[in-house]
């Protein structure tokens, strides 16, 4: 069963020479399997699953299908959508106006009611958080990374976003406004980064390769490499 290895499947390989801030989101985080016995919570979760299956409220197939969607489908969508926005200005306008409808154009049906795409410009840099829990556009980006769900990210990015961005290797001049979005209700968010120089003439597929998950949350910026 593949874990979060979607970067390994991308045609544009990220090498170690591209710098530290590119490295930590360019490598597949293998699910960390401890060698020891299952924890109480693992046992509890499996127990609830089996009880609910026995009651007919969910099926093993539904669970399996959902695991597959998160492993094989959801993580790839965000890069494709934003790559299209980069190459098609009219699509980008529609994406910024109605994120969910624009995704539907590409055959991508999101589970959230609303998607708000926020655009990075030379004047504004966007970064996303959910301080209250870990709301995230899962059907567009897959599962949120462990740092997004962490206490330290959730508590600090709202009051010291620039310091947090520096921890990800991203430094912004004071002339750029930092715009933090706390997704606390029914909207979900994705960042449309600025298209870097050096990507002229690239195919959508190649562009999607540099639109990593971290760039779509706003903690890093894409590089042409």
């Amino acid at each position, binding site marked *: *069963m593949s*874990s*979060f290895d979607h970067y390994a499947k991308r045609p544009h390989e990220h090498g170690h020479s591209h710098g530290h801030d590119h490295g*930590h*989101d360019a490598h*597949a*985080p*293998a*699910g*960390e*399997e401890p060698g020891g*016995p*299952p*924890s*109480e*919570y*693992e*046992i*509890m*979760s*499996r*127990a*609830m*699953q*089996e*009880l*609910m299956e026995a*009651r007919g*409220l*969910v099926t093993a197939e*539904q*669970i*399996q299908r*959902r*695991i597959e969607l*998160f*492993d094989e489908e959801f993580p790839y969508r965000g890069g494709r959508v934003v790559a299209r926005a980069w190459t098609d200005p009219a699509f980008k306008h529609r994406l910024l106006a109605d994120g969910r409808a624009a995704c539907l154009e590409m055959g991508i049906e999101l589970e959230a009611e609303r998607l708000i795409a926020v655009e990075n410009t030379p004047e504004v840099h966007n970064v996303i958080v959910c*301080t*209250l*829990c*870990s709301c995230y556009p899962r059907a567009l980006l897959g*599962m949120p*990374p*462990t*740092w997004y*769900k*962490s*206490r*330290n*990210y*959730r*508590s*600090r990015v*709202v*009051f010291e976003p620039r310091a*947090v961005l520096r*921890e*990800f290797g991203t430094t912004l001049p004071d002339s750029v406004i930092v715009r933090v979005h*706390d997704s606390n209700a029914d909207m979900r968010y994705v960042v449309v980064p600025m298209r870097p120089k050096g990507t002229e003439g690239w195919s959508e597929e190649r562009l999607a390769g540099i639109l990593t998950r971290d760039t779509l949350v706003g*903690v890093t910026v894409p590089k042409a490499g």
Partner: protein
Amino acid sequence: MTTPSHPHGPHDIGGEPAGPIDTTDHGMQFWEKQANALRGALTLAGIVKTDELRRAAESLPEYGRLAYFEITTSALRTLLLEKGLMTEAELEAKMDEIRRRFNVPDEMESPVKQKGKR
């Protein structure tokens, strides 16, 4: 920073001082993927609501000490008990059965068993 004197839940942490961020994505263990899928399937089927899961998570006395999927698992437990979709006894029995499958010693600390003993 937040005004500490005003009451708010253990989840409402925006603005609280905290340490450096571990910027590596540690991914998910297989059981966590299953737990995530279970939650999604039950939500899509309308059996639990996302808002109920959040409320149950926020109400956990041990919220601050738990990791993410421990929180979501405990919250789901709360709701399934609340809705009468399982009993504590059923859960405990099933967990014992699973422990036997994994050959896990019965003496391991179990918050569920401890609650059952009170």
